[in-house]
C-alpha cells in the first residue's frame, strides 16, 4: 500500500473564535457543503436519471417516479402533486396540505408501492411509512414564478430572467424528514452504504431530485423546454424555522466533525505556499463571480438587504487588492490575517473562497462528514478532574449571569400543536417549565457551582445531583471535540436563532439566505447545481456562488 502524506496545514482557528453565534450566522456554503459533496459524487459516477413513471395531467397533477443509480444501488423519488387552495398554502409545520409530496424510495417501486406512497405521502406527519421509504418531504409552489414560467412556456417564450433570479425556485420544501420519522427508515439502515453514509446525503439526494422534478414538471405543463441557463439557475426553495436549530445542540459530536472538516480545509488552504498563475487566475475568477452573486442576492427585508449591500461594497474593495495579494507567499493565510479587522460576512466569504480554490487539498475531507464513533465516555478521575476540564473547555459560561432576566429571556419549546418547535418569552409566557434542552451554558455553570471543594468520585457527586449528568457528558464531549458547542447563551435576549439556522443551512449548501424574522428564513438549495443531464460533465462541480449570466 502506498503511503500518502497528509497535506500541510496551518493551525486551526480556535473554537472560541469560530463557535460564536455571530460568526456562525455569517457562514457561506463551501465545496464541502453536503449538496456539493453529493453532486460531485453523482457526477463522478456519471449517474443517469430515468423517469420510469410519469402520470401527470396537463395541469401538473398526478404522480411520477424519478430513478437514479448511486453507490451501486438505485433510489427513486416518488412525486405526488395535487390541487391546493390558496388558504391552505403555508410554510409552517402546522400546515396540513401541500402542492406536492415526495418520498425517496429504496429501489424502484412497483405499482402497489407507488399506490401506497401516493395515498400516504400527501398526509405527511399523519401518515405511516415503511423502511423502504428513506426520506419524506413536501413542497409548495412559488405561486408567482410558477404561473409566470408556465405562461411564458405556453406562449412560446422563456421566463423573465430577472424574475426567475429574484425568486430562484419553482417550489420550496417546508420539511425534509429523515431518520425514522413517521416510520421511514432509520439512518442506521443505510449508513454503511457507499454514497448515502455521510451526513444528510439521503436528504440532499431528495432535495436535488425534487429540484429536477420541478424543472421537468414546469416543462411538462408549459409544453416547452426551459433554456438550460435558466433551468440551472432554478434551485429548490426551502422555508426553515426553529426546528433545525436544536439539532446543532443535540448532536455535539456531529457538529464538531462538520466544523473540523470546514476548519481543516481552511487550514490546508492557508498552508499553500504559492499559487501558480492558473490557480491565481481561478481565484480571481471565483472572487469576481462572488461579486456578481452578491449583486444578484436581493431580499425584501431592508435590514438584511443593507447587510448584503455592505458586504458587496466590502468585497469590491477586497477585489481591488486581490491580484497583488495572490502574488505573495501563503496567499490565503495572508488574506485571512488581513481580513481579521473586516466584517464577519467578508471573513466567512473569504473562507469559502479559499476552500473553493483548493479542491485537491480539501475534497477528501468530505469522508469525515459523519459520526461513526459516538460520544466519548465521561471517565473523569474525580470531580477535581471534571472541574478542571469544565473550566478549560467551558470557561466561556462564566461570562453569563443567569440571575439576570435578559440572560434567560427566551425558552425553546415544542408546542402541542402538531409538535411545532417554538420560542417563548420566559418572563412573559407560560410553559418555561417544559423547555427543550438548549440550556447547555446554564447547565454547565450550575454543575460547576455544585462541585465539592474536596474531590470525590464523579458518581458520588452525581448520586446527589443526578441532573448534572448531562453537563458532565457535555464536558466529556467538549474535551475530545473542540467544536462541539456553540459558545453563546442560547437563552439570552440577544440570541438570534437565525444565526444557528444559517450555520446549518450553509453546511447543507443553501444560499440566498432571505430571513423573514429572527426565527425563520427562506433559502435556495441547489441553485446552479447540475441538472441531471449535466452529471459527468465539467460544469457539474462548478456552482459555487451561482450567478445568472
Amino acid at each position, binding site marked *: 500500500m502506498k503511503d500518502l502524506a497528509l497535506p500541510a496545514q496551518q493551525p486551526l482557528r480556535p473554537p472560541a473564535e469560530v463557535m460564536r453565534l455571530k460568526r456562525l450566522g455569517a457562514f457561506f456554503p463551501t465545496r464541502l457543503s453536503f449538496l456539493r459533496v453529493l453532486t460531485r459524487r453523482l457526477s463522478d459516477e456519471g449517474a443517469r436519471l430515468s423517469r420510469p413513471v410519469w402520470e401527470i395531467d396537463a395541469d401538473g397533477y398526478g404522480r411520477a417516479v424519478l430513478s437514479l443509480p448511486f453507490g451501486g444501488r438505485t433510489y427513486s423519488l416518488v412525486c405526488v402533486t395535487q390541487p391546493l387552495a390558496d388558504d391552505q398554502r403555508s410554510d409552517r409545520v402546522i400546515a396540513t396540505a401541500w402542492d406536492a409530496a415526495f418520498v425517496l424510495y429504496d429501489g424502484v417501486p412497483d405499482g402497489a408501492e407507488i399506490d401506497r406512497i401516493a395515498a400516504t405521502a400527501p398526509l405527511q406527519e399523519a401518515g405511516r411509512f415503511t423502511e423502504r421509504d428513506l426520506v419524506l418531504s413536501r413542497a409548495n409552489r412559488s405561486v408567482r414564478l410558477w404561473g409566470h414560467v408556465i405562461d411564458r412556456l405556453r406562449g412560446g417564450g422563456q421566463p423573465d430572467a430577472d424574475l426567475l433570479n429574484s425568486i430562484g425556485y419553482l417550489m420550496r420544501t417546508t420539511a425534509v424528514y429523515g431518520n425514522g420519522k413517521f416510520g421511514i427508515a432509520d439512518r442506521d439502515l443505510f449508513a454503511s452504504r457507499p454514497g448515502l453514509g455521510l451526513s444528510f446525503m439521503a436528504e440532499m439526494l431528495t432535495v436535488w431530485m425534487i429540484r429536477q422534478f420541478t424543472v421537468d414538471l414546469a416543462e411538462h405543463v408549459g409544453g416547452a423546454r426551459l433554456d438550460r441557463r435558466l433551468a440551472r439557475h432554478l434551485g429548490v426553495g426551502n422555508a426553515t424555522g426553529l426546528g433545525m436549530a436544536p439539532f446543532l445542540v443535540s448532536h455535539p459530536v456531529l457538529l464538531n466533525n462538520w466544523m473540523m472538516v470546514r476548519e481543516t480545509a481552511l487550514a490546508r488552504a492557508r498552508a499553500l505556499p504559492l499559487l501558480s498563475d492558473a490557480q491565481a487566475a481561478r481565484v480571481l475568477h471565483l472572487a469576481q463571480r462572488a461579486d456578481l452573486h452578491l449583486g444578484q442576492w436581493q431580499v425584501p427585508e431592508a435590514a438584511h438587504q443593507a447587510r448584503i449591500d455592505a458586504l458587496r461594497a466590502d468585497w469590491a474593495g477586497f477585489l481591488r487588492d486581490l491580484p497583488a495579494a495572490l502574488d505573495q507567499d501563503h496567499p490565503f493565510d495572508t488574506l485571512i490575517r488581513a481580513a481579521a479587522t473586516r466584517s464577519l460576512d467578508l471573513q466567512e466569504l473569504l473562507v469559502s473562497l479559499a476552500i473553493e480554490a483548493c479542491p485537491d487539498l480539501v475534497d477528501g475531507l468530505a469522508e469525515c462528514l459523519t459520526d461513526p464513533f459516538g460520544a466519548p465516555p465521561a471517565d473523569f478521575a474525580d470531580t477535581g478532574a471534571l472541574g478542571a476540564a469544565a473550566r478549560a473547555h467551558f470557561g466561556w459560561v462564566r461570562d453569563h449571569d443567569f440571575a439576570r432576566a435578559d440572560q434567560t429571556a427566551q425558552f425553546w419549546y415544542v408546542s402541542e*400543536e402538531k409538535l411545532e418547535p417554538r420560542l417563548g418569552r420566559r418572563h412573559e*409566557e407560560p410553559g418555561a417549565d417544559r423547555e427543550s434542552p438548549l440550556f447547555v451554558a446554564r447547565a454547565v455553570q450550575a454543575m460547576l457551582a455544585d462541585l465539592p471543594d474536596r474531590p470525590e468520585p*464523579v458518581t458520588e457527586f452525581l448520586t446527589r445531583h443526578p441532573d448534572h449528568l448531562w453537563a458532565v457528558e457535555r464536558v466529556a464531549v467538549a474535551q475530545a471535540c473542540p467544536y462541539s458547542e456553540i459558545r453563546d447563551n442560547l437563552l439570552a435576549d440577544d440570541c438570534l436563532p437565525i444565526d444557528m439556522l444559517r450555520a446549518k443551512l450553509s453546511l447543507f449548501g443553501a444560499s440566498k439566505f432571505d430571513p423573514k424574522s429572527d426565527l425563520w428564513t427562506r433559502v435556495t438549495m441547489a441553485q446552479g447545481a447540475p441538472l441531471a443531464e449535466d452529471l459527468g460533465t465539467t460544469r457539474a462541480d462548478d456552482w459555487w456562488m451561482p450567478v445568472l449570466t
Partner: protein
Amino acid sequence: MTTCSANEIEGLAARAARGAGAGVAQAAHFGRAAAMHLARGGAGADLLAALDALPGGPVNAVPLALLAGEGEVRIATGGHDALAESYLAALPFAARVTGRDAGGLRAHLSRADRRAVSLPARIALDAGTQGALSAFAARTYVPQSETSRLSGAGAGLTDND
C-alpha cells in the same frame, strides 16, 4: 400493535422520560435502551415501570453505574434486570452480564472493544405502551395558545407568494 422505526421509539421514550421527570442525559440513555429493549422482545411494561419508579429506579441508577465503568461493574437494578440488560446491549462497546445478586447485576465492560449496535428495521410497539409513553411525552409539550401560534414560530399562516 404498531411497527415503528428504532428512532421513533428512541425519540418517544426519551421524551416520555423527560415528561416523567428524568434529566436530559438520563432521558437520552433511556430512549436508546427502550428501543433495544423492545427490539430484543422485552416487555413494554418494563419501560413504564421504570418511568413510574422515577426519581428512583433504573432510569437514574443504570447510566450512573455505566458512566465510566471499565471491567467488572455492579448495577443496582432495583428489580429492573431485563431493562438493565437492554441498557448494556445498547452500549457501543462490549458489555455482558457476568452474574446476578439480590437487587442487581454484575457486568463486564470493555470500552476498547467497540461494536456496532444494530437494531431491526421494524420494532413492534403495543398500543398500551405507546399510549402511556405518549402521555408522559405530552407533559413536555406546551399547550397551544393564540400568542404562541402567531409569534412563537415567527411566521404567518399562509404563503402565497
